[in-house]
């Protein structure tokens, strides 16, 4: 067990500063050609969330421009194209369990948004 932990010492990347985020809404960042939707919910814990920006149903990079809220206690973003909801923590689609997007680990340290790869 201890071996594995050492082998994947998490690599972190700074995506942007806290001031780049928009409260209760999303923005998009790019890492190695991959698009990541970042959401900043100041009154939640944790305060930042990251999932893939690609909407697998609408087939476009748009999830960062969706509206955030909660459905049945889960924090979600609604796709701006066809309104399916994606869980901000797991990337699961609430309307269709065959579909999901990637979820990423992000944290807010010293007013910087850090992504763990």
């Amino acid at each position: 067990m201890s071996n594995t932990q050492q082998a994947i010492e998490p690599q972190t990347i700074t995506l942007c500063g806290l001031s780049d985020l928009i409260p209760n809404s999303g923005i998009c960042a790019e890492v190695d050609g991959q698009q990541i939707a970042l959401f900043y919910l100041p009154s939640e814990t944790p305060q930042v969330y990251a999932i893939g920006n690609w909407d697998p149903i609408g087939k476009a990079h748009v999830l960062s421009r969706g509206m955030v809220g909660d459905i049945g206690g889960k924090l979600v973003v609604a796709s701006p194209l066809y309104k399916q909801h994606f869980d901000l923590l797991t990337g699961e689609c609430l309307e269709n369990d065959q579909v999901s997007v990637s979820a990423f680990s992000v944290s807010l340290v010293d007013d910087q948004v850090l992504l763990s790869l």
Partner: protein
Amino acid sequence: MLKVVVVGNGMVGHHYVEQLVASEIEAHITVIGGETRPAYDRVHLSEVFSGRTPEDLAMTTRDHYRELGVEAHFGDFVASIDRDNKIVTTESGKQYAYDKLVLATGSYPFVPPVKGNDLEPCLVYRTIDDLGMIQAQAKDRKIGVVVGGGLLGLECANAVKNLGLETHVVEFAPGLMGVQLDNGGSAMLRRKIEALGVQVHTSKATQVIEENSDGDTRLVMQFADGGSLATDMIVFSAGIRPYDQLARDCGLTVGERGGIEVDYHCKTSDSDIFAIGECALFGGRIFGLVAPGYRMAEAAVSQLGNDSVAFQGADMSTKLKLLGVDVGSIGDAHGKEEGSVAYTFSDERIDVYKRLIVSADGKKLLGAVLVGDCSDYDTLLQYFLNGIDLPADPQTLILPYNAGEAPALGAAALPATATICSCHNVSKGDIVSAMDAGFCSLAEVKAETAASTGCGGCTALLKNIVDDEMAARGLEVNTAMCEHFNFTRQEMFHVIKVESIKSFEELIEKHGTGRGCDICKPTAGSILASLWNDYVLEDKHVGLQDTNDTFLANMQKNGTYSVVPRIPGGEITPDKLIVLGQVAKKYQLYTKITGAQRVDLFGARVQHLPAIWEELIEAGFETGHAYGKALRTVKSCVGSTWCRYGVQDSVAMALYVENRYKGLRSPHKFKSAVSGCTRECAEAQSKDFGIIATENGWNLFVCGNGGMKPRHADLFATDLDDETLIKYIDRFLMFYVRTADRLQRTSVWMDNLEGGLEYLQKVVIEDSLGIGAELEDQMNNIVDTYQCEWKTTIENPEKLKRFRQFVNSEAEDREIIFVEERGQPRPATEEERQQILAKSA
């Protein structure tokens, strides 16, 4: 196949065709209509002079018949029927063979045998062509006389009055509407009609009509009592006579005073020939209303199939508006039944007359007369038709409410056979079955049964039944918007307004649960904007806006946006057109002229939106709010400035209206149009509010819709001056903003308003709720605080942060791929996109 020939294409003949097509009976249908037009709504004929066009009255078209596989011929009368060979021959010599023949020839106006009744300005009132002649004779004339003070005569008087003539009604009998009203009701009707400026002359027998040799008028009528009346035109509308000549000529049995005799199945003395509508005589009676004619058509159709429906006569109770006066007559209006007792209520202060005729034992309603106020009609009709026991004090049914609460007729008291909607013949049983089948809401019941979609008179009763049935099933209508708020949009509106709530956080903390979602957030955002008109991208509102509102543009299927600058009234200078072209070229946008009379630019990447708008605003454009639930365009025709037919400057009015209401946030998008004359080139009658110019001002239409569920707008008010027009629209729109449900267009909103159009007219025109001034103030506040959201956005660097494609790089989204088609870019299909991406990798 069975060959069915239908002679006559009036309302009843058309209903027969519709019923036969809808049935399972296989038949080849041939329609032969004497008039040049397919069937139209004769009941509302006089509206042609108050804003409606003949096309509005049409009930079908030649194309529609063609689609139904019906062979139709118009403008050719049938001249003879050969019963032995079963062939009809028309005046033009065409012959049609039949297996079953249906005579729906209707009736013709009775013209009293008076010398001079054939002079040129002596006309009749029956068809659209008649209206054309009346209009031609009325041109540049002052006085018009209608002979006949019955139902048809008063309808006709309305038409003459609408033409702007000094209108007289001449009646042979001592009172108006002698068939439907008792003396008291008749007198009240006269009083009300005279107050409207129509002069009534009763007990007048016309002896001769002569040309007027001296004076300004063309004719003089001489009466038996020695009096005379000068006029320019006479229209006879003194009753109808059945068109039965065809039947007489071929030997069918006709009544002594006319009418083709029919049995319960609407069969004539020849069992292969049916007669329906006003040409038919059943039980010694002619039924001169449309509803009994429809029932006859249905009975006649059923004879061709397996289930035979009998026509058993019809109730001739009627409720109508004559010259704007409400008149109702039920059953035995004259109290002819022996031992019957009458209750009468009359209030000359407000000109209302009501009379009940009750059986000797006081238990059953036999008849009623209502003039000036028909609000009790539906309830009384149910008592009458269903033989429901009257309350102990029947007079409470017609007394004003403050004199003691009238006992409400509970929906539960009605039997299943009770007819609720007489226009579409829907019974209470039909409504209950629809609800049994799962159509439970009022809107669903309406859509399923067609109840209350005709004249709308039964709306309140229908709602009572639906509510009552819901309660009986232990169901409750769940009106909650979403899991976060137990409110309808209207309730949310009230809460926000009354408590002066300024943010979503405050709203959900006080009245909701959780954090909100994509249903309640934009609804609250829209209400906050309607009430306080803050810039929609204020920090506290950003999270409430749908992406389209956030980026002030409409997201398209590939994640790019459309850019829609406002082009008010569709009027644009050449310089501005050039700028649109330049901007589109620079940012490689697809351009299309849309139905809203503007130019949409498609395919803008999110990071280009601010630069695009900066150039557009520099050139004088504003946002077109195509992304918002707000006013879209106000379409217009060129109007009197250029058009030979225009009577008002429709472009100037469209510009004014569009600039006034631009940016107003509402439950759904709304559209408008202004036409410069009744030719209606701007299609204003398909809009949420439409304005059509008249010689005297503007006619206002409301609650029309195009799109998925087209709905013709209703005429709301006529001949308005500019100021009144704007006042009514202010009130109408603000009342809609306040009370409509989320994503409810005006047409559906009005259909769900209890009382429908009339209620809306009361609120807006008569200010029955006393909120007129408040609605106007609210609108003025919004107009005064308007800002172009794009202008505000590009002036604020902080707001522009949102429009970066990536927060951490200047790259663009390389996965958005366009291909060229017809010289313009379009989004690549998923297949094309994959191929292009694979190639570039």
